[in-house]
């Protein structure tokens, strides 16, 4: 029985074994199937994801690249220098101007952009240029000088030239729609030596590879392993371009792979010539303050102050040498290092047959030739460019601004701009030193305009001119203080008052809508009683001006302000009379433009015209003006403003007696120091203060006026031609009585009813009947 049971059991096991034997293979197969399916799935997913990513990259970089490649940026030009016989420009000043424009000495005058100096004058080979009103071809002209300036201009073989324009300084190049700064070259504008030199130094296989170069990577690896440090990069020009366009500097595998993918896609999408041109326009070549120098066009201007097509062999080599390390090979900071690398590059040029032996020898014999910091970048005025951008966006349509290759002609005068910037920076340094203020605690802004046309000739947005940053000239809204007082005086003149009419400088307390009272004070804390209006303005007496403002009506003063500025005041209260009204220096310039121009309102203007790529004007901003003040009134006001300079708060200026008009302004706790002034040619506004709105300890005279003095010293003064008036009367300055210069300290002022004026005793002036009668009955 037991044996029978054992058999049954062994039969059952025998039956069960095949089943077990089938289970494991089946499990294995299932696992494999799962693995395969997963792998296939994953592969499909990877392919899909990769395709999606590649599509995404392709779309992104192609779009960006297309946009950048085909965007020819707008070129922005300063005003050209007009040259004519009699112009007060000395030979040395002319040479400075030539140098500023990148002209170089050349005895042979081999090409445009050169000049030759001799004992009697200068011969210059002017570059051709397409101006707003037509093209002036390149021409050789001879300039002779005498003590007062240019004596004669002649064209050898042709005779005298009455008037000629220099080519204007290029002061910027940007995409008006987004404001980026570049000098973009077309493929045809890239010099052959630069193109071939770049390939020889940076990427020998550029013409063959498809975005990356295995041999290049291996070569760099070997060099670096041997050196024990990173000596050579394995990146192709395309990879460098990708890095510059789309990627950061992080050193990760992920970034490297992305760079590789993008490079391959760019190579598939675009021609070698397009890629090389984009590289020439994009590569980083240095830093100038906050401004990055991208591209060889801008690099040529920045390092050599001339266009790329005028660079010599050595200069091209220097620019190429900088690519490897713009900071390490900075030719200003490390000239020896830069020179060594430049010479190595010149050797490569020679060994590759890009230059011949003579050119190689000559180039190596040359110094680096970079232009010193003072002269270079003379064409970079970020604060003025802000005004250009703002005006463009305001006055031109987006469609116009998206047009390619625009030429923007502006009102900037580079010499005036440089002088103004220097005056601002140096005066602030001097004030800080003298008053032992913390270094760089003061800030300033200044705007200079043509007094007749309102065109902005110079604009300084801060003490460091070449640094982009907060533009105080346009955007700092600060209380203007006493600078606003002429508006009240003008309102009074328009209501029939005379400058000699008496107003009262006495304590005043005015209720405010808040329930508080406003009790203004004079700067000296005193009161001065009755006095003529011109004297109150000249001494900038607050209480007298409040008295005048109340007489004429504050709403009328505000209406007058609107007439002069096309804007309504923010502050409707009497404190407006003393300048509790925030304005920018540019807005203040607009206000004073009414006075400087002899009674015409003009909006400050920076853009003269914009031409499209065919040279047709998209728009031409003609002079726009509106008569805002009648002649006799502005003539009277300007005489009062001249007195402010001769006798009043402006008298400390060394130019005060030369015939200039202006007004100082100081706000509460000496937070803001203002000066607005003009002569026959220029209207200037200067603001000095602190960005944190703390006290500077400066008045209008001790701060802003000093800056203006420094500006006048550099730019000169063109004395005001006073507007003739039939009703000028000699007035004793301190009393406002009629007098003569034999008996008193007199000034000439227009008075409509001189018979109403008191006569200074002892001046031997016959009184009128009315005066005699009055004297009889009033014991005068």
């Amino acid at each position, binding site marked *: 029985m037991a044996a029978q049971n054992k058999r049954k059991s062994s039969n059952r096991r025998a039956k069960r074994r095949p089943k077990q034997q089938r289970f494991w293979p089946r499990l294995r197969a299932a696992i494999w199937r799962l693995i395969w399916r997963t792998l296939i799935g994953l592969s499909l997913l990877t392919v899909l994801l990769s395709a999606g990513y590649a599509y995404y990259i392709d779309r992104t970089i192609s779009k960006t690249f297309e946009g950048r490649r085909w965007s020819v940026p707008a070129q922005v030009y300063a*005003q050209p220098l*007009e040259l*004519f*016989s*009699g*112009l*007060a420009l000395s030979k040395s000043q002319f040479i400075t101007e030539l140098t500023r424009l990148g002209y170089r000495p050349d005895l042979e005058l081999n090409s445009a952009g050169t000049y030759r100096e001799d004992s009697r004058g200068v011969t210059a080979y002017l570059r051709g240029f397409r101006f*707003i*009103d037509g093209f002036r071809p390149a021409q050789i002209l001879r300039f002779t000088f005498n003590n*007062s*300036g240019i004596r004669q201009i002649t064209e050898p073989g042709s005779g005298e030239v*009455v*008037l000629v324009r220099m080519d204007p300084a290029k002061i910027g190049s940007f995409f008006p729609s987004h404001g980026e700064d570049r000098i973009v070259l077309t493929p045809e504008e890239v010099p052959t030596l630069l193109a071939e030199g770049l390939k020889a130094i940076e990427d020998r296989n550029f013409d063959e590879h498809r975005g990356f170069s295995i041999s290049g990577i291996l070569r760099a690896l070997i060099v670096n392993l041997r050196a024990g440090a990173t000596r050579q990069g394995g990146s192709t020009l395309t990879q460098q371009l990708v890095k510059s366009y789309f990627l950061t500097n992080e050193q990760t595998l992920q970034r490297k792979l992305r760079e590789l993918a993008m490079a391959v896609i760019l190579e598939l999408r675009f021609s070698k010539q397009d890629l090389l041109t984009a590289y020439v326009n994009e590569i980083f070549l240095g830093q100038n303050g906050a401004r990055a120098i991208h591209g060889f066009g801008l690099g040529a201007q920045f390092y050599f102050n001339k266009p790329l097509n005028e660079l010599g062999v050595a200069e091209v080599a220097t620019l190429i040498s900088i690519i490897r390390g713009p900071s390490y090979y900075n030719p200003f900071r490390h000239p020896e290092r830069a020179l060594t690398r430049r010479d190595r590059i010149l050797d490569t040029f020679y060994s590759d047959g890009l230059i011949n032996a003579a050119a190689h020898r000559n180039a190596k014999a040359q110094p680096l030739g970079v232009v010193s910091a003072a002269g270079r970048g003379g064409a970079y005025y970020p604060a003025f460019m802000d005004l250009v951008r703002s005006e463009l966006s305001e006055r031109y349509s987006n469609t116009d601004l998206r047009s390619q290759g625009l030429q923007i002609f502006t009102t900037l005068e580079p010499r005036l701009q440089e002088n103004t910037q220097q005056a601002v920076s140096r005066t602030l340094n001097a004030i800080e030193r003298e008053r032992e203020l913390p270094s760089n605690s003061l800030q300033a802004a200044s705007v200079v305009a*043509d*007094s*007749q*046309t309102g065109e902005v000739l110079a604009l300084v947005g801060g003490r460091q001119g070449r640094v982009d940053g907060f533009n105080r000239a346009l955007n700092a809204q600060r209380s203007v203080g006493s600078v606003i007082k002429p508006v009240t005086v003008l309102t009074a003149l328009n209501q029939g008052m005379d400058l000699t009419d008496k107003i009262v400088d006495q304590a005043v307390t005015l209720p405010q809508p808040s329930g508080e009272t406003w009790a203004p004070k004079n700067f000296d804390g005193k009161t001065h009683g009755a006095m003529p209006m011109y004297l109150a303005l000249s001494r900038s007496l607050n209480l007298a001006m409040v008295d005048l403002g109340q007489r004429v009506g504050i709403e009328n003063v505000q209406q007058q302000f609107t007439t002069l500025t096309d804007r309504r005041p923010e502050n409707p209260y009497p404190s407006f009379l003393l300048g509790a009204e925030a304005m920018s220096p540019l807005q203040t310039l607009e206000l004073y433009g009414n006075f400087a121009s*002899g*009674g*015409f309102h003009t909006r400050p203007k920076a853009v*003269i015209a914009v031409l499209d790529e065919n040279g047709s004007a998209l728009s*031409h901003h*003609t*002079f*726009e*003006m*509106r*008569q805002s003040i009648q*002649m006799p009134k502005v003539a009277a006001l300007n005489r009062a403003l001249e007195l402010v300079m*001769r006798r009043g708060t402006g008298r400390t200026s060394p130019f005060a*007696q030369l*015939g200039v008009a202006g007004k100082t302004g100081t706000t509460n706790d000496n937070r803001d120091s203002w000066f607005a002034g003009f002569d*026959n*040619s220029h209207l200037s506004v200067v603001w000095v203060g602190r960005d944190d709105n703390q006290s500077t300890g400066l008045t209008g005279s001790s701060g802003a006026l000093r800056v203006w003095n420094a500006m006048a010293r550099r730019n000169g003064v063109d*004395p005001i*031609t*006073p*507007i*003739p*008036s*039939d009703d*000028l*009367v*000699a007035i004793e300055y301190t009393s406002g009585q009629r007098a*003569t*210069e034999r008996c008193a300290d*007199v000034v*000439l002022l227009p*008075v409509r009813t*001189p*018979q109403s004026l008191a006569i200074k005793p002892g001046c031997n*002036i*016959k*009184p*009128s*009947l*009315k005066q005699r*009668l009055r004297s*009889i*009955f009033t014991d005068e």
Partner: protein
Amino acid sequence: MTANFARSICLAAYLTLAACASAPTPNPAPSAKATAPAVERRQPAPPKTNTDATFALLSEADTALGAAQPKRAILLLERAVRIEPRNFELWIRLSRAHLATDNMNAAMQHARKAIALADVAVGVTTATAQAKAWLQYAEVLEYRGQKQEAASIRRRYGQQRG
């Protein structure tokens, strides 16, 4: 007492005089030339040396205007104004050029500017300069249909044109 007597005498004398003649005019306002203090007297503005240059542009602008190219004329004249901004002649021509482009407002304002600058004109008498500027203003007024005002200005300044 004596003072009162003197006042009475004076009053009587003056009333008598006033009855037979118009009141004596007060001392005329001293002219700038007569009483100008030393500090206020200035030399006239130095003669402009850019006349040839602006004249060349002016001639070219006239040619452009004659050839019905007022926009070009404006460009040339504005260039001249940048060289010599206070030359009233240039503003007169600008007004004329704007008139040719039917820009009434600019024509009017530039004529006014010319009038303002004619007061301080150099190299020509003020009267002549004023006449030229006012006559241009009359031109603009006539163009705007203000014929009476234009005629009135012409009557006043027509003879003085230099």
